[in-house]
């Protein structure tokens, strides 16, 4: 029986059953969310998991995914924390517009991001052409391109998380640091960053998970070249295309385990403290 919880968290004394239409829809929603994952685990070729993970193609994709997503996360921290600070701590014309632009990739379909990246950094792109002509740097269809695509998608998550942490932190800590002789840059390093450290950590985990699962922007901007741009999600896609269902399932399980770990790591943030 589903009991009704009152607002303050105590169970109601008169525990009536919840109305059945609501419960029914809630059950359907749960099935929609959980059934596919159950199916994935149920269809896993458990005897072949170890062999699949040892296969050179899978290991190459895993290594590439790890390197690219960690690079993208590092890049997102280095660039995103200062951007978050500017958004949270300074006041200038167009700050709100900048914030909206920064947030846009969160809701933008990743494939659009990929096309946009091509227009900017492709060989005939706005900047890509100059990079190629002057420095011989090509980003499209390279591993660097994968990192760029993943950064593009992950960065906003980090910026928003860190900006939120900065806004909710007490600015008077920075005042206190100033009265103790600390300049603004020194205060940023020694006071602001440590205080919003947990926010940066949470933002980084979120950004990393986003980068690891990136598909649309990567395949559009960097294509699907094994060993160079084929990350795990792209390898899953190719395996299914080439009817290597077992390979697709094993790689999907790997991503599922990672996602679950992220959820556990951020449980305090999303699920509230454990009771």
């Amino acid at each position, binding site marked *: 029986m589903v009991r009704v919880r009152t607002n303050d968290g105590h169970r109601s004394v008169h525990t009536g059953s919840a109305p059945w239409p609501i419960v029914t829809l809630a059950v359907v929603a749960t099935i929609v969310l959980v059934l596919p994952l159950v199916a994935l685990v149920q269809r896993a070729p458990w005897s072949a998991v170890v062999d699949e993970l040892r296969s050179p193609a899978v290991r190459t994709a895993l290594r590439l995914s790890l390197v690219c997503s960690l690079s993208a996360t590092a890049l997102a921290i280095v660039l995103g924390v200062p951007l978050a600070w500017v958004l949270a701590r300074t006041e200038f014309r167009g700050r709100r517009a900048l914030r909206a632009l920064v947030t846009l990739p969160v809701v933008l379909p990743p494939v659009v991001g990929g096309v946009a990246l091509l227009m900017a950094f492709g060989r005939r792109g706005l900047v890509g052409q100059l990079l190629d002509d002057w420095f011989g740097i090509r980003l499209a269809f390279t591993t660097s391109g994968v990192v760029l695509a993943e950064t593009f998608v992950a960065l906003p998550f980090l910026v928003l998380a860190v900006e939120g942490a900065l806004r909710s932190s007490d600015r008077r800590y920075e*005042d206190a640091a100033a009265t103790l002789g*600390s300049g603004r840059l020194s205060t940023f390093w020694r006071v602001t960053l440590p205080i919003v450290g947990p926010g940066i950590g949470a933002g980084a985990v979120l950004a990393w998970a986003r980068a690891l699962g990136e598909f649309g922007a990567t395949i559009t901007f960097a294509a699907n070249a094994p060993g160079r741009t084929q990350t795990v999600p792209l390898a899953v896609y190719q395996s299914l295309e080439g009817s290597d269902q077992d390979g697709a399932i094993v790689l999907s399980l790997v991503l599922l385990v990672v996602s679950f770990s992220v959820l556990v790591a951020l449980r305090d943030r999303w699920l509230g403290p454990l009771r």
Partner: protein
Amino acid sequence: MIRTKARKTEARTTETHRDETPSPSGLTASVGVRLGSLELDVDLLAPEAGVVAVLGPNGAGKTTLLRCLAGLRPLDAGRVTIGGTVVDDPAARVFVPPERRSIGFVFQDALLFPHLSALDNVAFGLRRRGARTVDARRRALEWLARLGTEYLAQARPRELSAGQAQRVALARALAHEPRLLLLDEPFSALDAAVRIEMRRALRMALVKFTGAVVLVTHDPVEALSLADRVVIIERGQVTQADAPYDVAARPRTPWIAGLVGVNLWHGTVEAGGVSIVAGSPPIVSADTDRLPLGSRVSVVVHPHAVGLYTAPPQGTPRNAWSMTVTTVERHGGRVRVGLDGPFPLVAEVTPSAASETGLSPGAQVWAVVKATEVEIFED
């Protein structure tokens, strides 16, 4: 009621700093800022080693004043000098940011950096001013010891009680030996017992402090007992700036009269009470038997605790003096009556009581104070 405060040293007694000549090595400030509808316009002088208390109702601009002195908010008009150096003068386009001013700031809620130990919090200012880590930690430990908190050196701020945190915050503000110490209601977040301890700790710490001190508070006892000079701010303006005794004895506005306008004497504990004037009977307090004979104390009697009678009092009131009315002033719903007798005294009565008793200058009355209404503070 006995409240104690740490022993004053000779160098810090009120008398020494009664003079009002601005010391170029202390603080001179003329602060003008607009705060929404409030115009803050305050002149403030604090000599070296002097303590100025800034007292005022909520929203009077006290905290803003401190933030201006610290450089956390630039002036709109005016001028601030610390130790003879101009740190803010908008007309001359001078503004020294807080990190380059010689200041220490104690916030109401300590604001210790949560990621640093108590020791590293105290060492922070020394480190930022270029001290080596080892030296900074050694000096920080000395400061923690001076405030009786060296056993907390390795504790994180979240492990400290409010009183402990405020002591560490005080050590942190003093460790780099600033020329100006700014205290923003440092005790108001503490409960009463801890507050008394803290006041004692502050007084001890200030004994060796050679800079100027500005203490913002809304607690009149704090202001009267810690400061050499009390500045009252109401709605952004100074309404009175005097020695504590004068503020207590001659409050200039109803707000001051209501809060600070108390009878304040200094005296010596003797058998039967506190002697404040040679030759007159001692003031009897419910507290004196707990103090050793000869203790130097401050005696506070709130004017509303003074009863006025035309006939000699019946029964056995412990404190009853025959006095002459010198002044009668109406402050809002109260009448303040100035009296003279063995010593000056201020009483506060309702307008109807005043007219019934026929109070007017020259009238003879009996002033009566219950022994339980006489507050004693150890000097």
